[in-house]
């Protein structure tokens, strides 16, 4: 009799377990489903809008018609500008952290500060950029001010990915180089950096993806509401894709009529972000294997 009860108990236990596991799996797939819903919604609604004209023409008639060319160019300028600033500094900072400074209080402080910087909300970067670059240094609303603000935001990302790339380089390479009489910098430049290079580039691409979608930091440092011309210098205002999407979906003069443009803009933005992510993933996998084989 008892034996049967235990069997029953075990069975019901097992049933409960498989029910719970099924639920967990279901939730996991629902979350992936949410992602696919968001993506496919934007793609489905935006794909009919996108055409060659859409990405190469100026906006027209209060942004209810025409293209988003200046916004694309503006975003490219901002991404380029921020990376010119953040990439070298970030890589150098990571080299310093990983190759030069010894474990100790200085390293701890720098690490802590980098962590803190990456935790600061993007709107606070916007406030800071406005106070320092736009007002104090007098750059005004300009590509320069926006690029610097975005660059600061991207700095922790660049530092972290570069550090990881450098950590991935086996110490035996360093020892061999130093043992042959090379200086620290020679070792870093000729041995460590070439090996870590693909992963550093992956980090760069990831930060490009991050920066191109940021809106809050550029609200008050560069973004122009409607500016149907291209920027000619770094002191010009510019349109930008994320800000353009925000404006035409909330505060345009004719929200309903400009909806298609909004879908198109969202799609272009998503394509940029997805491409950078996929490219970064691909590079990581491709070079990850190659480096290991060496």
């Amino acid at each position, binding site marked *: 009799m008892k034996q049967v009860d235990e069997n029953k108990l075990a069975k019901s236990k097992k049933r409960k377990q498989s029910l719970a596991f099924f639920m967990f799996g279901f939730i996991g797939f629902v979350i992936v489903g949410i992602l696919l819903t968001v993506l496919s919604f934007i793609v489905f609604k935006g794909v009919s809008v996108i055409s060659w004209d859409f990405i190469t023409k100026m906006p027209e008639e209060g942004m209810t018609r025409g293209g988003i060319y200046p916004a694309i160019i503006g975003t490219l300028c901002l991404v380029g500008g921020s990376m010119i600033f953040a990439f070298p500094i970030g890589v150098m900072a990571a080299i310093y952290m990983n190759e030069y400074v010894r474990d100790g209080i200085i390293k701890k402080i*720098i690490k802590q500060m980098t962590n803190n*910087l990456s935790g600061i909300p993007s709107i*606070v970067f916007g406030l800071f950029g406005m106070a320092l670059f736009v007002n104090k240094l007098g750059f005004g609303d300009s590509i320069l001010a926006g690029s610097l603000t975005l660059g600061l935001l991207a700095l922790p990302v660049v530092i972290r990915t570069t550090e990881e790339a450098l950590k991935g380089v086996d110490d035996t390479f360093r020892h061999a180089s130093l043992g042959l009489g090379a200086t620290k910098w020679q070792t870093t430049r000729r041995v460590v950096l070439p090996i870590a290079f693909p992963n550093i580039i992956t980090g760069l691409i990831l930060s490009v993806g991050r920066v191109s*979608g940021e809106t*809050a930091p550029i*609200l008050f440092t560069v973004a122009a509401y409607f500016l149907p011309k291209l920027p000619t210098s770094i002191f010009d205002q510019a349109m930008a894709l994320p800000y353009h999407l925000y404006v035409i979906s909330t505060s345009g003069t004719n929200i309903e009529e400009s909806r298609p443009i909004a879908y198109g803009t969202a799609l272009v933005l*998503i394509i940029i972000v997805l491409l950078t992510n996929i490219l970064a993933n691909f590079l990581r996998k491709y070079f990850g294997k190659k480096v290991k084989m060496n």
Partner: protein
Amino acid sequence: MNPFFKKFSEKFIEGLLMISGTVTSLTVVLIVFFLFKEGISVFNKKAVEEGYVIAVNKSNKVNSISPEDIKNIFDQKITSWKDLGGKDSIILFRLEDISTYFTDEQIGENFERLPACISRVVDSIPQIFAFFPEKYMDKNFKGKEIEAGKISFNTFFGGKEWFPTAQPAAQLGAKPLILGTLWVSLGAILLALPLGLAAAIYMSEIAKDKVRRVMKPLIELLAGIPSVVYGFFGLVVIVPAIQKLFNLPVGETGLAGSIILGIMALPTIITISEDAMRNTPRSMKEASLALGASKWQTICRVVIPHSISGITAAAILGIGRAIGETMAVLMVTGNAAVIPHSILEPMRTIPATIAAELGEAPNGGVHYKALFALGCILFVMTLVINLTVEFITGSKKYKKH
């Protein structure tokens, strides 16, 4: 190569690298400096319209009036000095009221005797509350100018109204914004935490390796979508759905914000707690299974307790992300700056307020500084959250990979 030059260039490069290493620290210091310099100075400012003064009769015992009380006096919600620690009822005097006391002749054609007239009015009526431009202040003014509309810590953090462009005194009460931020963020975490944990358990303990290898990058991709796109999606899909579902006049509610923020917090929660769970030593899990525990029991009694610090970190970090998020919230929560009573009301968060208003706030004015003060609050909130997470994850075995 010249050995001296070689040594010099080595040192030079090291110096260059060191300078780059300090850039992040410098940035944090600069951010704190600028944020707090502008933010704190709001407490030296007056909420009263620029160039105006408030004066009372010399016999009046009241020495200062808060911005809220000024507004209430103008709205005639406060009609007696008794409410403010004085006595008798208030007689409100504005510049345009001068004609009831004096003729045009007495004032003079070019208002040349206006300052003297105002002075006389204030001197002769004990219950007066006079509000007039500073330029009409008489040289030997017989009333008492009072410190009015000074923004104090109490009015800023306790004030129930955020109405920064109000006349005659800006209402800068951050309470509705702080509460709005907390409501929306807590709502988001309540939605995202159970879902995220379930998915994390599934991915780390139950799913086959193949499934996991597809699922994980997809969920990480969820983190890469720009917040403005989420906001747009919320605006065109979730907002109308909520409006229909709950039969509301507007769909832009705290709930819409919570849902969008919840979706945005999911990748953070899943990746961090999954990492923590996968860090459970295999030996512990196998020991549990060998003792006859079911897989479910092992998850509940071994894996989750072992990774609890990581799970806590994930939850707190998720809240942190939600609190600091700007664009998505700005687009879907409706931005009504009132103290929320239910999640189905429009709400306004701190980041959304900054984003919506900074462009219109005159540079260096009260409003501008108040927005920086909000930025300070936000900065402190997120800093506390990040330090807590570091403390939790640092003090336990769990480490981020």
